């Protein structure tokens, strides 16, 4: 289970399913960032219920949630959504027993006043979501750009985040 931190400055949560090809790209990013063992950065992976995000980011200042997207853009393209004050979901949510997604978790967190001080969704466009498929090379390339983007934005050891060189 993912429990709340006592306090954490920065958190990256990789979301996805490692058995569904490019859907595992959020988990891949989380694993690469964990390997770097960066001070002041916590890393978590979320494979199950997205509502667990509400506990995962409790007591954290700045959170990046990395997930795969399927929007028709070029595979590997990276989009950044600052959802701290702006909704990711348009209109009523299609909340179902199986279908709660990251967008639902963010909006539920907003309704319950359980969002971190800053919450950014990093969406990496996937291409191949077949069961058992490997992550596409082009999508990994996009993921590396996403990692650079996150690292530039981290607030580490009291320092202010560096300017984002490539926000989109």
């Amino acid at each position, binding site marked *: 289970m993912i429990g709340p931190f006592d306090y954490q400055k920065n958190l990256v949560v990789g979301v996805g399913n490692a058995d569904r090809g490019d859907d595992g790209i959020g988990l891949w990013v989380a694993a690469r960032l964990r390997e770097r063992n960066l001070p002041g950065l916590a890393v978590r992976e979320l494979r199950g219920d997205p509502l667990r995000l509400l*506990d995962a980011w409790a007591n954290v200042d700045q959170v990046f949630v990395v997930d795969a997207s399927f929007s028709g853009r070029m595979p590997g393209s990276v989009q950044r959504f600052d959802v701290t004050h702006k909704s990711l979901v348009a209109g009523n949510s299609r*909340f179902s027993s199986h279908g709660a997604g990251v967008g639902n978790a963010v909006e539920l967190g907003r*309704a319950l006043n359980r969002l971190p001080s800053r919450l950014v969704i990093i969406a990496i466009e996937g291409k191949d979501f077949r069961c058992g498929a490997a992550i596409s090379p082009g999508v990994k390339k996009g993921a590396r750009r996403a990692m650079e983007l996150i690292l530039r934005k981290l607030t580490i050891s009291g320092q202010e985040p560096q300017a984002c060189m490539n926000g989109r």
Partner: protein
Amino acid sequence: MGNSDRRSRTVKVGYLARVEGEGGLYVKVQGGEVVDVRLDIFEPPRFFEAFLRGRDFREAPDITARICGICPVAYQMSAVHALERALGVNVDGQLRNLRRLLYCGEWIESHALHVTLLHAPDFLGYADGIQMAREHRDAVERGLQLKKAGNEIMTLIGGREVHPINVRVGGFYRVPTRDELRPLEERLKVARDTALEMVRWTAAFTFPELETDYEFVALRHPNEYPFNDGRIVSSKGLNVTAAEFEEYFEEQHVAHSNALHAILKGHGAYLVGPLARYNLNFDRLSPLAQEAARSTGLGATCLNPFRSVIVRAVEILYACDEALRLIAAYEAPDFPAVELSPRAAAGAACTEAPRGMLYHGYRIAADGSILSAKIVPPTSQNQKTMEADLRAFVQSHIDLPKREMRLSCEQVVRNHDPCISCATHFLRLDLDRSEA
């Protein structure tokens, strides 16, 4: 819309919301009479019974768990019991208790989600659980706390909260130590109090009138509220074993649904699920759960499907209570599983999924490969009754304005927490009112 228009119209919900899977709803009214009702299930067929053919019997619990992300334990439990019966093995003692504890976890998390985020918005007038959360924060937090407690049981016993990986035919791959269960006790004591508050909260909703004459069908055990064991009984006299299920129940294909409709032969439509369990097993609930139900005025019998939201809350309370009882009596078994050897055989079992009785029947070859599998999920069994509910509701509320009619029809379906992927995401309602 004038009253005369309302007496001939079509109510159509193209895509039902706050249910699982893809389905819609069509109701046609002519001259003040409901002439056609269809719960359209257009979720594509999923072919699990065919996937199982040729696979080793030991793979069944992990394959069938994938049928559902919210009630995988039910699929695992019905699978292991059916296969153990085929192999002549009885899994008893603490292994049986651990299975019951795992099932408590699934009921708590599944019911808590449905009561709070899927069903309660209907009663309180919100489009969804998120909008409701802004004004009913405490109630939603309670639901999330309960869901978390259920998930923790699933994680500890099942290895993970979605699609557990620790269940096997014969028992488990690993059993917890007593010390590992201890932290759950404190969490569940709090959850039990939270569940009691949820019972009171749901009891204060306003409920539309709808009295039904269902044939309730559920398991009944000599001394337990049913999870894994019991005879199949009904409110109209049925009393058979799971091995006899296919003699008494029949699945039928209908053109408008990709899920088979089940009937009780010679009787017709029936209802499984919390309402059926409650009405057939009220005396098997723990004293605390019975008392909580009585305090809401629910009584031992409940025939209004809208009140099923209270029954689910009572079942959450019971599951917390039962989980605490099981943990208090737990001693780690010497072996995590009973050894078994394949043989040519057949076996069947029913267990009680959160949404109702779930049947699995298997035939296996001497080498342990599965020759055939039959799975009858609760939502398949309830489809005819959901259509009957819609017919009765629309007929008795024929003059409701179109928007209210559409929302109420959706609520009628959500009363039964249908899982259309097990048998559909949400609902299009077509209400056709035309001149006779």
